[in-house]
């Protein structure tokens, strides 16, 4: 119960190049799955998986806990729209969040939202999570994840 752990992040949109997205998830047994579909640059979907060690999961938990994202709520965040969608799902310490919002182009958009403090926590956390995942995936598979 209390030590259940799961993280999933998605960012994407559906447009003239189809469904373009980046998504990753961590399972409690260490399985990291990474999917990246960008039809604009190339036509192929990248799908990779690898098991990470307990130490990686512990560091991930630390990053999430210290961000205090679990204290936030997406109720006043901009809703997903045509521009795109982001989702963050976390199960940690007996808590379960599943947030959804639009793509955030800049910090300005965060500041002018109805919940700048909460959205800022989200905005920086996802950048830290993406940095960790991109480093893990690129060092293991030697592929260059597409930044967006």
């Amino acid at each position: 119960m209390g030590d259940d752990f799961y993280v999933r992040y998605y960012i994407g949109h559906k447009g003239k190049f189809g469904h373009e997205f980046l998504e990753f998830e961590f399972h409690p047994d260490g399985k990291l799955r990474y999917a990246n579909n960008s039809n604009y640059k190339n036509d192929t979907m990248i799908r990779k998986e690898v098991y990470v060690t307990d130490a990686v999961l512990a560091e991930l938990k630390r990053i999430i806990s210290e961000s205090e994202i679990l204290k936030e709520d997406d109720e006043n965040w901009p809703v997903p729209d045509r521009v795109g969608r982001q989702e963050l799902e976390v199960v940690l310490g007996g808590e379960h969040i599943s947030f959804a919002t639009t793509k955030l182009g800049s910090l300005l958009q965060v500041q002018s939202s109805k919940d700048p403090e909460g959205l800022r926590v989200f905005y920086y956390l996802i950048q830290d999570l993406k940095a960790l995942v991109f480093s893990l995936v690129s060092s293991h598979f030697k592929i260059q994840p597409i930044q967006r």
Partner: protein
Amino acid sequence: MQGRGFRDQTSLADRLEGGTFDRLPSAGSGPGPQKSVEGWVLLVTGVHEEAQEEDLHEAFAEFGDIKNIHLNLDRRSGFVKGYALIEYGSKEESQAAIDDLDGKELYAKPINVTWAFSTGPLQAKARR
């Protein structure tokens, strides 16, 4: 349970639940260190927020030729986030770095050094 994700479920059918995921081949049975495409990757945690890549490089170069270092920054503060990924070409070099540096101090702060990737699911959790 908090968030609109619970009210507005999304389909993972064309995402994480669709298709097959590439995985590198792994040798041996049971979880152990997993080889990456070009070498063996270590996770270093407890890295001081003001640590410099050169200093990490210097500490780890003693055990072999370092192929790659990722020292990510906290996007909010600009300081080091607290972890690094360091890659050697051989398992022996990586093991030597773990044996020597795990628990040692860097910038007067103890660091932990261990493998980043595993050949299979973590045992304790897999049984549940």
